[in-house]
């Protein structure tokens, strides 16, 4: 039930609300075409994958802190279950297994957690609600975009098992050829790598379906009066992300297929001639390994913004609400997101400063990379400006949003070291990089997501999440997070390289083992704290305090719908009269919010309000 003209269709729509009461279990909860259910499905799946990815990370951390020791708990369990690999190796993490652990940690976290939790879970749930549409433009495509996640999960899962744990994909999530192209190059470069590439393709298909849908929905299905510059920043960020995704993703998919054909059909895109890998026959060649790096990063750098922009948008919305103030500099916020997205296409080379590409490219990529720090800085200043003069109450949402800003500052500033090419000569592929991107992807994005879960939970289930558990979860996660990732900056300065199963065989790193043990302990605290989130989430679905339509006294359209909204979302079709950030407006007395749908003074607002033309031609405004 979607239409380009929601206003004209409003009466027909009311019937649908009744007509859909008899939906069966399967089409309501499994093969649902309702954007809210799909969003919730994405959220459950990504939280599940968060546990998987986190466990893999703890394996990595254990090896770095206590190399070659039997893993506690895991080795006992494996022994009971009769897992042959672990028993044979006395519960140790072998170097092959170690490379697989970090490869799959990154793959799972990036492709199955962060991208789908932002675009899939929150994008699906929020876009129609916030723009006043009854559903996505293409509900079936939307359902498929969720269900194409599962082949990806299955492929990634199979890649663990086809060769045993010691022969799972282990070329890093970046999968640089020649390592990933030649079967003999590593134990995990066989079938496991092929399955991994197919998983990647499925994730890509899923994201692509999502982004086409988001763009169409945002362009065509906004409620009457919802001009582009009255859209919440969440919607702007989802819109820009969808565009980024749609333009960058085909490149990765193409590169993935090229690598697949190289591996299975004997093509030569990436492998040059005359290589002798693992004492095998010389390669036939003709390829160029840097081609993969260019293609891969042409997607994967914009992907960093795909993994960040939606969180920026959601934090902007939440922050304005919790400090009861309009967002500071709404348009600069929009333009800076657009600038980040635009510049995001011309900075991929900063991942390749030491790769041996033409040094002149290093210079141009340095300048464009430095310039992308500018819109990021503008956003930070605007967030601080938003809090400035606000009324701050520290609930879980505020805590996570402030943590987002604070951690994003750290992650952004540490990026400057790497953007500077000469300094990057030293820092490239050290733990400084690891610290940097965890500050951005975990410190910023995941804290933003934790806040967003707490904030929009009442809209999903009609109940509030526990404040007490939420704060405790935040407190432990924040301490564990900083304890884990801040010392990694120092490790990086000490020249500690990434992806080493046992760095301590190198004398200059021997003394860093205690610091790694400290990091691992903090990582365990952080990991355990996530059970508070899961517990809080599940318990609150059943036992949370009942929430009304608008528990946060927020302005957005989603808060005019019932909690949880029924099929078709709105019982009264929303008409929009103003932007979403009119908190503490002097126009109303006795309350500090003014919803987007409230009509205060028809005579005054009619003059410049496109909403009043809505009945005649709603699609063509803006």
């Amino acid at each position, binding site marked *: 039930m979607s239409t380009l003209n929601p206003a004209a269709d409003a009466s027909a729509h009311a019937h649908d609300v009744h007509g859909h009461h008899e939906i069966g279990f399967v089409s309501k909860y499994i093969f649902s075409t309702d954007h809210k259910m799909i969003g919730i499905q994405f959220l459950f799946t990504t939280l599940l994958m968060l546990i998987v990815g986190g466990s893999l990370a703890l394996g990595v951390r254990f090896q770095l802190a206590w190399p070659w020791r039997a893993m506690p708990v895991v080795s006992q369990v494996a022994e009971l279950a009769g897992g042959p690999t672990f028993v044979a190796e006395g519960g140790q993490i072998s170097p092959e297994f170690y490379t697989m652990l970090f490869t799959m940690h990154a793959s799972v976290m990036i492709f199955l957690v962060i991208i789908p939790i932002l675009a899939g879970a929150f994008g699906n749930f929020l876009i129609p609600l916030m723009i006043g549409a009854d559903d996505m433009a293409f509900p079936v495509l939307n359902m498929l975009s969720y269900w194409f996640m599962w082949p990806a999960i299955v492929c990634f899962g199979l890649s663990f098992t086809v060769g045993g744990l010691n022969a799972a994909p282990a070329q890093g999530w970046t999968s640089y050829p020649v390592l990933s192209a030649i079967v003999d190059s590593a134990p995990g470069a066989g079938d496991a790598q092929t399955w991994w590439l197919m998983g990647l393709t499925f994730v890509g298909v899923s994201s692509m379906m999502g982004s086409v849908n988001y763009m169409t929905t945002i362009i065509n299905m906004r409620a009457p009066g919802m001009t582009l510059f009255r859209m919440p920043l969440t919607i702007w960020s989802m819109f820009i992300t969808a565009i980024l995704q749609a333009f960058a993703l085909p490149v990765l998919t193409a590169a993935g297929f090229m690598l697949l054909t190289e591996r299975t059909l004997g093509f030569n895109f990436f492998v040059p001639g005359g290589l002798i890998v693992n004492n095998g026959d010389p390669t036939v060649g003709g390829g160029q390994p840097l081609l993969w790096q260019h293609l891969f990063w042409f997607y994967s750098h914009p992907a960093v913004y795909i993994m960040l922009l939606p969180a920026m948008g959601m934090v902007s919305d939440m922050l304005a609400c919790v400090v009861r103030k309009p967002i500071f500099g709404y348009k600069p916020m929009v333009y800076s997101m657009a600038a980040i997205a635009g510049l995001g296409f011309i900075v991929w080379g900063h991942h390749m400063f030491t790769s041996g590409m033409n040094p002149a490219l290093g210079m141009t990529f340095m300048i464009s990379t430095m310039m992308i720090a500018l819109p990021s800085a503008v956003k930070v200043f605007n967030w601080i400006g938003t809090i400035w003069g*606000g009324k701050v109450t520290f609930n879980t949402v505020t805590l996570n949003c*402030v943590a987002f800003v604070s951690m994003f500052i750290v992650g952004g500033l540490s990026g400057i070291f790497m953007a500077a090419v000469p300094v990057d000569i030293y820092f490239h592929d050290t733990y400084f990089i690891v610290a940097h991107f965890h500050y951005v992807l975990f410190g910023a994005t995941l804290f933003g997501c934790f806040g967003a879960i707490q904030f929009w939970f009442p809209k999903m289930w009609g109940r509030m999440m526990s404040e007490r558990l939420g704060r405790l979860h935040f407190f432990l996660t924040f301490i564990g997070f900083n304890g884990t990732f801040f010392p990694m900056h120092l490790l990086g300065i000490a020249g500690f390289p990434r992806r080493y199963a046992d760095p301590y065989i190198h004398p200059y790193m021997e003394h860093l083992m205690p610091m790694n043990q400290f990091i691992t302990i903090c990582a365990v605290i952080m990991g355990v704290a996530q059970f508070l989130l899961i517990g809080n989430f599940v318990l609150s679905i059943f036992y949370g305090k009942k929430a009304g339509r608008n528990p946060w006294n927020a302005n957005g359209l989603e808060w005019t719908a019932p909690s949880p909204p029924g099929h078709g979302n709105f019982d009264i079709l929303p008409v929009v009269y103003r932007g979403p950030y009119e908190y503490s407006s002097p126009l109303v007395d006795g309350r*500090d919010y003014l919803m987007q749908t409230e009509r205060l003074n028809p005579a005054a607002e009619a003059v410049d309000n496109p909403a009043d033309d809505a009945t005649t031609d709603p699609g063509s405004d803006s």
Partner: protein
Amino acid sequence: MNKFWPIFFMFWPILAIVSFVIAPGMDWWFPGPAMSPLGEQIDNLFYLILVIVAVTFVGTHVALGYVLWRGVDNKDQKAWFSHGSHNLEILWSIAPAGILMFISLYQLDVWMEFRVKTHFPEGTTPVAEVTARQFEWRIRYPAPGKKLMTTPQSDDLYTVNDLHVPFGRPVSIRLRSMDVQHAFFLPELRVKQDAVPGAVIPVWFEASKPGEYDLTCAELCGWGHYKMRGRVFAENESGFEQYLETLQAEQNFDGVTQPEHTGAQIAEYGIEDSQ
């Protein structure tokens, strides 16, 4: 109690600054001072950025702490109704743009010196070809007194993992890979360059002091990535020559004939040369 969270959020930046201040004393810092002139320049650029970043970090966090602190205290009925300030936006767009532009332009010279062949220091001589391979470094030197040729010569000298170079002058290596991608990383000298299959990349460096430096691999090259350990020995000119001669003698030894005593052996065992 309502001040707990602003204090909490300010505690971490302070801890971050403190940990950076004490880090060098705790040996959580660079693996020794830079042992090459280029490395010193890189370190200086690092410290320059560190200062700029530290000032920005403190500034933004003081601002964040201040607005949070005031926000908790805010007893007004309503928050400040403001949609932003055009002048502030201009100011905080232009100021960082200038600083970032300065940082990037200031870096260019060092980068050119490191990577652009025409800007290599004068007199940079190629000493060896280093071929990375899972999981070792194969090194090819020219015979003593000869020049390194691009194609292997019959009298070239070969060794594994130990790269000897003269110190005090810029030398270059031809970096290659025999199988997958590797990276040639000398942490003490602040040198890093990927070894790309199918390409030969010249890498120059200058060890300012004699000594033994670590050589590690910095690009994932397979399960044994971590153990791809080599060493770079920086020696004086005569030591380097002597090393090559020893290597040549070892390589030419047919297992039967008494090898000619080399200079190194004379020094080590005190054997007189019979001729």
